[in-house]
């Protein structure tokens, strides 16, 4: 199923059939997208947990989206290279959401992930002078490059585990096999919580 189909299916199930325009007030596709996104995040996290156990992180690749030609900038104050991170990348532990950062045309030259505080340690190690690949760490919405980074790299390719909202309408969305029903139930529970509190406290002939 692609993203639009997921949203449509949830809307239809909540509306009890073909949704009419008025139901947008309650089940707006953009809000449903957010709710699906919340549950999707949970399921990706479960996939990550499974990967931690099996050490097979390729399970995360089902949720990867490519960001091409991401421009690298230079910060004069810190004299560091950085790029703006796609803001919908999931904050998985160990930077596992960043499946690959590399020069645009060389996917074998993968940049090495590290934490922001580890740069001081790596700088003192011999390994940092031997290994030719740049490293990167993430701070909020920026990816900072360290180590062997230079102005030779103008644009990078980023493959990252992204949130549901960042997929295009026609993009296929994969769920962990066998968990589709649980996924939908969780979305429905979230959306239906909206109506626990009466929405309309005014007698204004408006049923929404």
């Amino acid at each position, binding site marked *: 199923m692609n993203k639009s189909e997921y949203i449509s299916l949830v809307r239809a199930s909540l509306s009890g059939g073909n949704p009419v*325009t008025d139901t947008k007030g309650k089940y707006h596709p953009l809000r449903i997208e957010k709710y699906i996104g919340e549950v999707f995040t949970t399921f990706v996290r479960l996939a990550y947990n499974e990967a931690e156990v099996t050490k097979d992180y390729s399970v995360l690749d089902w949720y990867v989206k490519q960001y091409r030609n991401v421009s690298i900038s230079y910060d004069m104050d810190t004299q560091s290279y950085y790029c703006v991170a796609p803001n919908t990348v999931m904050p998985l532990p160990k930077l596992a959401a960043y499946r690959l950062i590399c020069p645009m045309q060389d996917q074998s030259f993968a940049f090495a992930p590290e934490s922001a505080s580890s740069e001081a340690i790596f700088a003192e190690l011999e390994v940092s002078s031997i290994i030719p690949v740049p490293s990167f760490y993430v701070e909020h919405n920026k990816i900072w490059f360290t180590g062997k980074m230079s102005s030779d790299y103008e644009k990078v390719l980023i493959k990252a585990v992204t949130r549901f909202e960042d997929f295009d309408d026609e993009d296929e969305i994969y769920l962990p096999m066998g968990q589709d029903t649980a996924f939908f139930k969780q979305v429905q529970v979230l959306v239906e919580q909206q109506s626990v509190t009466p929405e309309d406290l005014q007698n*204004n002939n*408006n049923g929404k």
Partner: protein
Amino acid sequence: MNLGEILNFCNAKLNKDQSGNTFSKQQLNAVLPVVNLEYMKKKIGLPEDYQLGAPISRQAWDITQMITQQLSHLKVKMGDGETQPLQIDQYGRAAKPSDFMYHSALIWKVVDKNDAQVPGFYYNSIEVLTDAEYAEIISDAIVRPSKKYPVAYYIGTKIQFAPIDLKWAIFEYLRKPATPYFDCDVINDEMFYLPPGTTRKGESVTASATTTISNNTIVLNNATTEGLIIGSAVTGTGIPASTVISSLPTPSKIVLSNAATASGTVTVTINSANTASQSVELDWPEITHPDIANLIYVLMTQNLKDDRGYQQGKIRQTTGE
């Protein structure tokens, strides 16, 4: 059923036509536009049916296929390929069509590109909001109006869209049903219905009128224009041959097709023979005609001292049988 048959039905049910007619032509034509709109109101949804917190009518537009079919002949689609879509101006406003009666749907064609930058399109509905909802949604972080999810609200004679640069939209609405009109020949004080497309046998009346030379308008002295038919032949001293009534602007003035050739008080003869029927039939499917006949019947019975007919009519409105 045509209007003549409906009137006959009402008269028969009321059993009050011994003297000729329960309703005069004028009374019936005063009632018909009201009944026409009342029936429309009932079918699109009576607000009087609403319960507190449940604004749903027993009958409402599109609530069942039955209602949809009964009103489908009144549905107008702007932008179906043969008709122009609703044009939206630079301020995001579109004029409501002059025959607009009730909203059905607004649709917007979303033009998008896929990852390969190939343009495509799909349709999305435009949500119609109240003012209060619009005030909230316009600043909502998630569902604020966008070209993918536009919104609209009604204001005055216009529909306001957001975002404002949509340019056009597909609009489906229910138009106002044609106003029915009962036209008839009156012969010996008895009404004979004239279906649309027929001509009247007509009758001849005489009246005193004042003419003015070279003027098309004559003024009736001791009569009114009530009952006169446009197109009727007018003869008299100082009135050229083949003169007919062009219009009836006031209850005492008649505008002729030719100017009078003399001034003075003359006796004119007005003959409505062979003028075309002005009848307009009900703009409703035949299956609904009994319901409309009952509405007319209820209004007729309200004139009577005995209210049994009125009670029966009201019961018929509720039970539908």
